[in-house]
């Protein structure tokens, strides 16, 4: 596709349920990032994938959060036993390489509401 695609665009889930959020990066982009944005706030780094290197998971807030990426394509962010504080927009982004200077392109986000 022309841009980073995320699904679902909106998700309402009950507290305690697991959710999966999907990201399709721009074709050819080897780097993929997940960020979280709470209402009215900036973006918090969650996790970063670059090619076949071990992902940088330093931003994951708890062990309830995990992410996987198949090769240099689709990534899935999983939140287990969701809590109300997990309500946020989850933004995926991709770039050509991890070398600083390459533009990072963001998707429209997956809006998660935990009730």
């Amino acid at each position: 596709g022309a841009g980073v695609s995320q699904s679902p665009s909106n998700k309402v889930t009950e507290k305690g349920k697991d959710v999966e959020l999907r990201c399709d990066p721009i074709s050819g982009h080897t780097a993929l990032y997940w960020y979280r944005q709470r209402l009215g706030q900036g973006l918090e780094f969650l996790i970063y994938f670059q090619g076949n290197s071990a992902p940088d998971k330093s931003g994951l807030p708890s062990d309830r959060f995990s992410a996987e990426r198949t090769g240099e394509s689709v990534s899935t962010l999983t939140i287990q036993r969701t809590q109300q504080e997990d309500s946020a927009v989850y933004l995926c982004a991709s770039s050509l390489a991890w070398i600083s200077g390459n533009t990072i392109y963001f998707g429209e986000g997956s809006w998660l509401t935990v009730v």
Partner: protein
Amino acid sequence: GESVGLHLPTLSVQEGDNSIINCAYSNSASDYFIWYKQESGKGPQFIIDIRSNMDKRQGQRVTVLLNKTVKHLSLQIAATQPGDSAVYFCAETRVTGGGNKLTFGTGTQLKVEL
């Protein structure tokens, strides 16, 4: 700790005026800075970037200024238009070991008044 912050949470300007959005950063090791625009309900959109070996960079109607001495970054928008209304974020990263892991500021809401 390391942080990137903005001076003003909301900026209101008249259509046609120039806008200046400011950003302060605390990590002197930061060497690459990006400005993003985020419209309501959408993901951040790249506007312009600048490396630490530069003081100024210009784009279409936008200029980014970097003052490494005081760790300050600004975004200037010329002839502000209603379509410029959005939240603007600055972000920083470090080349060494940082990849493209960006640290974002809280954001400045730009409101363009007709």
